[in-house]
């Protein structure tokens, strides 16, 4: 399910000082959006598994870069959450 405010937060971090804000002022950035408690917690913990089904994948891609993950790290990180369905698609 697409979480409007979660996606909006990540969308707005695309500005030039987004990385700086997220690195140095994460709690205040989070406080600007009416997020569900479990979403807030997931953001504070870098809990990608919780965020994945709630976020647009292109914003997730950007978010992983913002967190400092390069392509190979992002791929490895996301792969952990593959479902049987995803794997079947890959092998089909």
């Amino acid at each position, binding site marked *: 399910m697409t979480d409007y405010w979660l996606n*909006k937060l990540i969308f707005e971090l695309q500005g*030039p000082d987004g990385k700086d804000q997220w690195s140095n002022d994460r709690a205040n950035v989070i406080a600007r959006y009416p997020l569900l408690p479990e979403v807030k917690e997931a953001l504070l913990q870098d809990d990608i598994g919780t965020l994945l089904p709630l976020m*647009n994948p*292109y914003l997730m*891609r*950007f978010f992983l870069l913002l967190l400092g993950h390069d*392509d190979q790290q992002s*791929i490895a990180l996301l792969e952990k959450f593959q479902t049987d369905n*995803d794997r079947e698609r890959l092998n089909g």
Partner: protein
Amino acid sequence: MAKVVGCFAASHAPNIARAWDTLNEGTREWLNSRYKILGDRVKALEPDVLVVHSNDHWINFFLDNIPAFLIGIGAEHDPPPEPFMKGLFTQDILPGHADLGRHILDYAMEADFDPSYSHRVKIDHGIGIPLWRMGYNEVPPIVPVFINLVEKPFPTPKRCLAWGHMIRNAIEAFPKDLRVVVFGTGGLSHSIGETTMGWIDEDFDLACIELFKTATDEQLANELGQRLSQTGNGSAELRSWSIAHAVAGSQGFDLIGYAPQPETLIGCGLAEWKIG
């Protein structure tokens, strides 16, 4: 009257700019040579304006207003705001073609399409990368057309083909002499920010290339409709290719190059359609 003098497709991965300096020599060489062929062919056609179909990548639009199709009708657009695109173009403001844009918009609405419109868009990497790699340090006049391909629901492949045919008719109904080149950018297969990120579906890509060479509109719509649900999310951008295909008259095309390219995360392809 205006005339469609060329129809092209070209991929547009961010890594082509972001990672340019660190790409393998062979990859850079491949990209250099293939985009140069594309650029040479486009420039030889001496276009007055480029009508470029792409999808927005969360640069112009958010979930509070996602257009299915949007036509840029302004005389001015903004250069790519993505950090990795900074400095690739010399202009502070990119030229639109307001007259042709507005004409296409009016034509579309009379022809039972419902496009959104914009007086000013940001030209993101989706349009910017092919222009840059073709050797345009100065962007020529463009009519940008955005298709939603990032957050579902997307326009159906069938509707994209219909859109392409409408675009051809609209351009040919423009009352001034203009040489128009039409682009579809994006594709081929890729998977971004989802659990299969990095997957390049070569089978899908080769099947699509074959379709663009030989398929009827109905076959293309059916095949894409089925195959797109079984491959990576970025493959949705083949819809832009299908629009260029329809603008050209669905008469097949000439593949300029294709390479599954893990470094850019995409099946990278470039092509020129026959104008039928």
